[in-house]
């Protein structure tokens, strides 16, 4: 069954979209990662204009982070004060990201910005995940427990001025690092259509030294507001949010995530993580190959004033 997407301006099969949402949702539920960094490239491969894919995916992530974050909220595993500070930085970052996006869109370079950001981040994340999971597999084979590594935090960063007490995290640190981390992730969110949890969570653990039990809940908490801000800003500045597309992805995504979480609890992690790492790397490689190989058609056309 074909459906005409009013903003993307193409017809796509409904079941393909719901299926994609379900698959990515399932994986994100199983691995405990957001699905944005897989869904946005998949939408682009499907033929959705990249600018629409990014903005629409931000809208979908609002739904998946609300549904995921609710459980942490009820368990009180959210550091609200930290979340609000990250969110403040994040909303500012999303504003900067959307403005950059708009500027490059007018110059016809936004597709390049999106592709390059993805190639960069997917190869870094995929590479790190693969290394981590291979180490874990090797450690299990040797019968050794894997010790969590905690690189020395640069504590002077945390001792900058504007110190705030975070009761939930049992920290008394400067608000500047979380503001900056929030800003960076907010910008990424606007440019790539991701929640940014895969950057936010390690940053909270290793840079801010937050206790792990509040990290995911706090990350999800601020992702809700930052992706909401990205959705609204892209709607206003670029008119690239396709609500119908977002809705169909949500239907598949939120349901897939629930089943993924159930399955994820029953399966052993390391092999699956290695698989996810390979998928992430594969998508990155595909985007990279698309950038370096000569396109069949050198020309592209848009309505004047619509850069992407």
């Amino acid at each position, binding site marked *: *069954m*074909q*459906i*005409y*997407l*009013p*903003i993307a*301006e*193409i*017809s796509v099969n409904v079941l393909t979209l719901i299926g994609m949402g379900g698959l990515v949702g399932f994986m994100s539920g199983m691995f405990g990662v957001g699905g944005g960094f897989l869904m946005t490239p998949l939408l682009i491969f499907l033929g959705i204009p990249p600018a629409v894919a990014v903005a629409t995916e931000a*809208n*979908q992530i*609002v*739904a*998946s*982070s*609300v*549904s*995921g974050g*609710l*459980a942490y909220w009820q368990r009180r595993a959210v550091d609200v004060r930290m979340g609000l500070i990250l969110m403040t930085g994040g909303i500012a970052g999303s504003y900067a990201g959307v403005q950059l996006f708009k500027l490059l869109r007018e110059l*016809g*370079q936004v597709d*390049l910005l999106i592709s390059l950001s993805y190639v960069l981040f997917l190869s870094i994340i995929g590479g790190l995940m693969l290394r981590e999971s291979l180490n874990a597999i090797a450690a299990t084979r040797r019968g050794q427990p894997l010790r969590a590594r905690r690189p020395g935090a640069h504590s002077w960063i945390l001792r900058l001025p504007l110190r705030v007490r975070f009761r939930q995290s049992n920290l008394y640190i400067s608000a500047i690092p979380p503001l900056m981390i929030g800003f960076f992730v907010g910008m990424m969110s606007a440019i790539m259509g991701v929640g940014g949890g895969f950057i936010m969570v390690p940053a909270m653990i290793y840079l801010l030294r937050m206790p792990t039990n509040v990290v995911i809940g706090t990350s999800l908490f601020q992702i*809700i507001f930052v992706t*909401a801000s990205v*959705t*609204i*800003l*892209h*709607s*206003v500045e670029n*008119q690239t*949010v*396709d*609500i*119908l597309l*977002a*809705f169909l992805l*949500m*239907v598949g995504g*939120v*349901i897939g995530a*629930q089943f993924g979480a159930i399955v994820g609890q029953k399966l052993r992690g390391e092999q699956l993580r290695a698989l996810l790492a390979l998928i992430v790397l594969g998508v990155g490689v595909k985007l990279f190959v698309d*950038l*370096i*190989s*000569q*396109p069949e*058609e*050198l*020309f*592209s*056309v*848009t*309505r*004047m*004033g*619509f*850069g992407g």
Partner: protein
Amino acid sequence: MKQSFRHWVTLALLVFAASSSAVHANTIVADLSKDHISIKSNFAGEKLLLFGAVDTTQEGPIEDIVVVLRGPGENFTLRKKQKKVGIWVNGAAYNLGPLPGFYAISSTRNVAEMAPQDELIKLGIGTDGLEMNFLSPTLNAAERREAMAGFLRLKQARALYAQEQNGVKLIGGRLFRAEINLPSGMPVGTYVTEFFAFQNGRLVGYQTGELPVDIVGAGSLLHKAAYEMPLAYGVFGVVMACFMGWGVAILFRRR
């Protein structure tokens, strides 16, 4: 069923009109199978039937018929990719327009054989006449040709530009019909239909009409809202997402 009945009535009237007005200056009468196109959410393209009748003149029966369906004019930005530091990036940008967002032409035979080239360009028949519409004046002739060819390739690939040399069928020397494919990515707006009858290289009959194309239903509402009240549209997207996420979380908790 109802629609095809309507066609036959129209066609019968057309034949009557054509045969009764022997001294009438216009020798072509035509109509479409639809008076408007509605792009619904399940729109996956459709066929438009264009049909009518031609008179016989003193010089004999008319055999050269051209039908044109032209979408609303728009300005386009055409970009050409170049290799820079190993990757393909958008380089030169040309602005062109106004050019039709949709252009389909169908004829009984190759239009070049029907009338002189300058006459065809003057009448806007065929894509050759579009070449004049460059907004970037700095291009040389070769660059213009290359860019225009690229533009036409892109439009043809999405079935937005189409040319069929034997698409118009003449029936009994008097009735004619042609089908034009309307693809799912067609732009909205008021389209123009044109019917030309040629005889011995001269235009002997002409008729024009309009065909409105718009998005209807939920898609139309969303499209309108996105462009006309973007803030409310974005907020709506967020609110919907919150309810969806919340609803599903509740649903799965209960089980």
